[in-house]
């Protein structure tokens, strides 16, 4: 079905884009890669009167290293993340996560800003940003503000974005030596959204001692969930398979997923445990390698 007709604007500056969004209020929507929005338009689940195309805003394409952090502009495509182009190589976790998104055509056009703004509960990039304690930078009529990932994701398809605000980019920490990471997910068919995805980051203090662990899961609630219990249980412990697996057992109890057509609640809890264990084991093995490297 064709989309309901709308007025189309392709502003050349961010100020213009924000002004247009402010002028048209709830009637307007920003367009990035269109890989979530266009299906909503053609299914007529979204009927904006005005579309503000962000694709001409060169300033949203920047990628740069800022000391221990990596800045990724909102318009950076999933394919660029997957290929680890330029400075993106500093956060290879993004490479692994982006490669799991949809199909190659989705990745050619879909953007990191669009993925965070859309906030699908099963999406990979929100879970990565949540696992890394990233910061989402928003610009609106009142200026710019930095929102920690934990505050950005409010509910399913719901974020802290205010009226006429756009995501300009995201800031992630660069992973140093002694830090390993992994993404594990299960989906029904190639190209589908994950049923559950697990992102783990393991930091070693020494080869025999974990300094800190961070785990975020997608697909087990309305927002990407951190697992504070599992994380606390592993601080100071040995990074062996047995310890990691025992701690991951706690994942099932830390999430409260709903069942749906894709998977029952108990199956999602099972996946939470299994995928957390696998991600932790791979991340710990990588941390050990990167320590000695």
């Amino acid at each position: 079905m064709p989309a309901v007709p709308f007025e189309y604007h392709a502003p050349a500056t961010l100020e213009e884009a924000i002004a247009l969004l402010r002028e048209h209020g709830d009637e307007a929507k920003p367009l990035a890669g269109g890989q979530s929005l266009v299906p909503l338009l053609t299914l007529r689940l979204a009927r904006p009167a005005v579309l503000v195309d962000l694709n001409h805003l060169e300033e949203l394409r920047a990628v740069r290293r800022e000391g221990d952090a990596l800045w990724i502009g909102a318009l950076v495509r999933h394919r660029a993340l997957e290929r680890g182009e330029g400075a993106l190589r500093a956060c290879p976790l993004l490479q692994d996560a982006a490669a799991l998104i949809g199909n190659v055509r989705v990745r050619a056009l879909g953007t990191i800003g669009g993925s965070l703004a859309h906030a699908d509960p099963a999406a990979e990039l929100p879970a990565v940003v949540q696992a890394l304690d990233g910061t989402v930078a928003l610009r609106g009529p009142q200026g710019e503000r930095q929102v920690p990932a934990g505050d950005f994701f409010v509910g399913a398809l719901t974020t802290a974005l205010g009226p006429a605000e756009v995501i300009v980019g995201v800031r992630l920490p660069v992973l140093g030596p002694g830090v390993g990471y992994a993404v594990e997910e299960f989906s029904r068919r190639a190209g589908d959204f994950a049923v559950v995805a697990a992102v783990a980051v393991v930091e070693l203090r020494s080869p025999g001692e974990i300094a800190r662990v961070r785990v975020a899961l997608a697909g087990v609630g309305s927002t990407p969930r951190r697992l504070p219990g599992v994380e606390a249980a592993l601080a100071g412990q040995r990074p062996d398979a047995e310890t990691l697996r025992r701690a991951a057992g706690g994942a099932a109890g830390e999430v409260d997923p709903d069942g749906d057509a894709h998977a029952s609640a108990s199956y999602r809890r099972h996946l939470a445990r299994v995928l957390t264990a696998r991600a932790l084991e791979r991340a710990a093995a990588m941390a050990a390698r990167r320590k000695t490297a």
Partner: protein
Amino acid sequence: MTDLVIAFTLNGRLREVRTPAHRTLLDVLRDDLGVLEVKEGCGEGVCGTCTVLLDGEPVSSCLVLAPRAAGRRITTVRGLGDGDALHPLQEAFVAHGAAQCGFCIPGMILTACAFLEEHPAPSRDEIRQAIAGNLCRCTGYTKIIDAIASVAGRKTRG
């Protein structure tokens, strides 16, 4: 809504269309320009039958709004060969009997073509991964993979 005038290069030729912004590149190609080798399967980005190369990268034309095609280079399967000569991938699909009903084939060949540009010597498994987003309801994929692998082999030797 006022119409926009959108110009892009289609298989090497400059084309111009007048369209409201809410139509997709797929609508414009099929309904305005008669480009019928681009097929509509799902209309949701899943099946890959509407694949075109946008500046060389495969995209779902059903998920590209018409104005996003302005100034871009669009390639369909007809743009791969030159005139009467088939592209080596097209020849391989014929030689391996890789098409049955043919509905998925234009998208499949474009996806494979872009993939081989980036990975000239892929393994069979990499080929399977590369075409995972292009659904075929007829062939069972084996002969499609054979066809792509045969061209990949040739490229590495050459």
